[in-house]
């Protein structure tokens, strides 16, 4: 059977003969190495830590302690006055962060669920990295929501719990939908992260000693790899892959409804749902590019798993998303502009000429113009650091987008007497804190969890082959998953 090229003696050699040496791309799936060797590489990548790692880790820990826990505690103790929120910008950077992090979190689901459903093979080595972003991003998003509450210690009132007051939460409220959607998404994506992790944890369990052994043994749950276990896991993952996609869409749509359902100029827009989802993917893709770049250059053996072909594919995705994003932003603004509602008109003028217009123009530049301009070029797509920079710019642009939608658009409302510009205060520290916490989580995870889903890579390599049709070498995939 040609499908299982890896198992055919001499298959690698034969494939190398057929592989065009001048092909700029390298296919991970066509470059198989024995599973044992892959395992060793992944295990080693987890074990190797340099002083640089610990230094960054230490700095981040301090940042988290000061900017996240201390700053938040201080804000809880002092009240929200230490933040910059006021009338009319009752929501500030906290909600910007929430939307931003939820946006980041969409990348994981997109890559691991949608690309899984559509069998995009290039996804395999970095699904886990992206899913970790989902979970950790959602943690930051959740924390940001709680930060913004005036009385965070009473936030449990939002949960539908029976109580002596005979009161239930208000399901008319978009915030309630948010709560339900984000809860679903957090739980769903965490489970979806964990399920495919089990075999890799079992692998790690088999090759560790000491506390790591105990750690992996507990988390691997006694997974051995029996046919039944694989079957249950596969069924579940298939279900998850399909089920989490509508959840993902619903989450960001509902987040957008927080704004779209409100009676405010600039907010009340029916295009917000898909616009936010696309925006989320935009920033998520950018973030994946950054993470892949960092992984490839800081972790051992990652240059085997993460290759130019992945950056290339990601770059194409980013470009596609950027196009779609441009379509939505045009849709959003042109319709509002055309409507000519007085308050909306004021708002649009404010965006184009007001003191925050630089943010508006940067948003357009970073989110649309730059991706359009540079991602056409294969060289840019395939140069990891360039793609990471584009990803970073997209993320800055997307942060500005959310910033414009929340505090800047809140500035202009139906009551011109109250218009005031928002100045973030402690929010800046807390923003730094959430970013630091995200990175800290990620760094810790990179040393505790196999960041490469080894079994998936192996599965992919098993399923791939090169066939010569006519004079060309053609990559083929078996349908055996």
């Amino acid at each position, binding site marked *: 059977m040609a499908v299982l090229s890896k*198992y055919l003696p001499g298959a690698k050699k034969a494939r190398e003969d057929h592989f065009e040496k001048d092909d700029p791309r390298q296919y991970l799936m066509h470059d198989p190495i024995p599973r044992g060797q892959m395992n060793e590489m992944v295990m080693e990548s987890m074990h190797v830590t340099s002083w640089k790692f610990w230094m960054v880790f230490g700095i981040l820990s301090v940042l988290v302690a000061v900017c996240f826990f201390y700053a938040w505690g201080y804000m809880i103790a002092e009240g929200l006055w230490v933040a910059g929120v006021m009338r009319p910008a009752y929501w500030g950077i906290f909600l910007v962060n929430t939307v931003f992090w939820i946006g980041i979190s969409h990348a994981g689901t997109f890559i691991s669920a949608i690309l899984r459903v559509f069998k995009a093979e290039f996804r395999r080595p970095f699904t886990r990295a992206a899913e970790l972003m989902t979970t950790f991003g959602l943690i930051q998003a959740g924390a940001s929501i709680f930060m913004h509450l005036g009385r965070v210690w009473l936030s449990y009132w939002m949960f539908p719990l029976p109580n002596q007051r005979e009161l239930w939460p208000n399901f008319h409220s978009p915030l309630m939908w948010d709560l339900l959607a984000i809860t679903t998404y957090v*739980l769903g994506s965490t489970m979806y992260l964990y399920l495919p992790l089990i075999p890799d944890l079992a692998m790690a369990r088999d090759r560790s000693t000491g506390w790591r052994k105990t750690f992996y043994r507990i988390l691997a749950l006694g997974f051995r*790899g029996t046919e039944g276990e694989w079957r249950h896991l596969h069924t579940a993952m298939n279900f998850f892959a399909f089920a989490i996609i*509508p959840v993902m869409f619903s989450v960001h749509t509902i987040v957008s409804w927080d704004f779209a359902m409100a009676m405010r100029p600039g907010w009340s827009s029916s295009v917000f749902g898909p616009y936010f989802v696309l925006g989320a993917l935009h920033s998520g893709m950018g973030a994946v590019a950054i993470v892949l770049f960092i992984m490839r250059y800081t972790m051992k053996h990652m240059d085997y798993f993460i290759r130019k072909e992945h950056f290339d594919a990601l770059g194409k995705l980013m470009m596609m998303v950027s196009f779609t994003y441009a379509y939505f932003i045009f849709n959003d603004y042109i319709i509002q502009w055309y409507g000519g509602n007085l308050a909306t008109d004021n708002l649009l003028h404010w965006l184009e000429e007001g003191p925050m217009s630089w943010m508006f123009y940067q948003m357009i530049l970073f989110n649309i113009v730059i991706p359009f301009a540079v991602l056409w070029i294969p060289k840019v797509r395939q140069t990891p650091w360039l793609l990471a920079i584009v990803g970073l710019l997209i993320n800055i642009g997307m942060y500005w987008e959310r910033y414009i939608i929340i505090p800047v658009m809140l500035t202009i409302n139906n009551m011109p007497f109250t218009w005031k510009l928002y100045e973030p205060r402690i929010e800046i520290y807390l923003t730094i804190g959430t970013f630091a916490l995200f990175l800290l989580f990620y760094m810790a995870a990179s040393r505790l969890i196999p960041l490469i889903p080894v*079994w998936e890579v192996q599965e992919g390599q098993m399923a791939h082959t090169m066939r010569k049709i006519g004079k060309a070498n053609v990559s083929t995939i078996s349908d055996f998953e």
Partner: protein
Amino acid sequence: MADITLLALFEDIDPAADAIEKLRHMGVTDDHINVLSGAPIPYKMLGRPHPHTNVSKLSLGGAIAGALFGLFLNFGTPNMYYIPVGGQYITPIPPGLIVLFEMTMLFALLATFLGVFLDSYFPNYRPMEYTPEISDGKIGIFFKCAENEQTKIADALGVLGAETIKPVEAQQL
């Protein structure tokens, strides 16, 4: 006559499939064969019977429970204590659909996740028959046979390309 559990390790799929066929011929029933692998190998490739799973049924059950819970939240709770807001109907349908959807999905996902646990007997930290080489990509065939047939079967599998054939004890993973 005591039964013994043997492990035959294979590098590739084809010999493993042949070995299973062989075992079956030698009177080891499918019930007594257990195939462990480091990556999922479809049952058809090994010629194994289709493993049964309840996960999808549990998912459906979860979805139904979630839908009911969602309906209760949106249409039940407002009637338990009537609080009007902003001229809205007390139990509006459009927001109800959102609650319904989210709760259905949440419960379905939870049920699926728990289904894996239930079906696979996770977590299970008791000693089990296993060898770490399986996670190195080897295919391990565990089978029970009578102690006196051990050599015979081992020889037969060795011919088919088994790397090692050895008796295994349940061990702490």
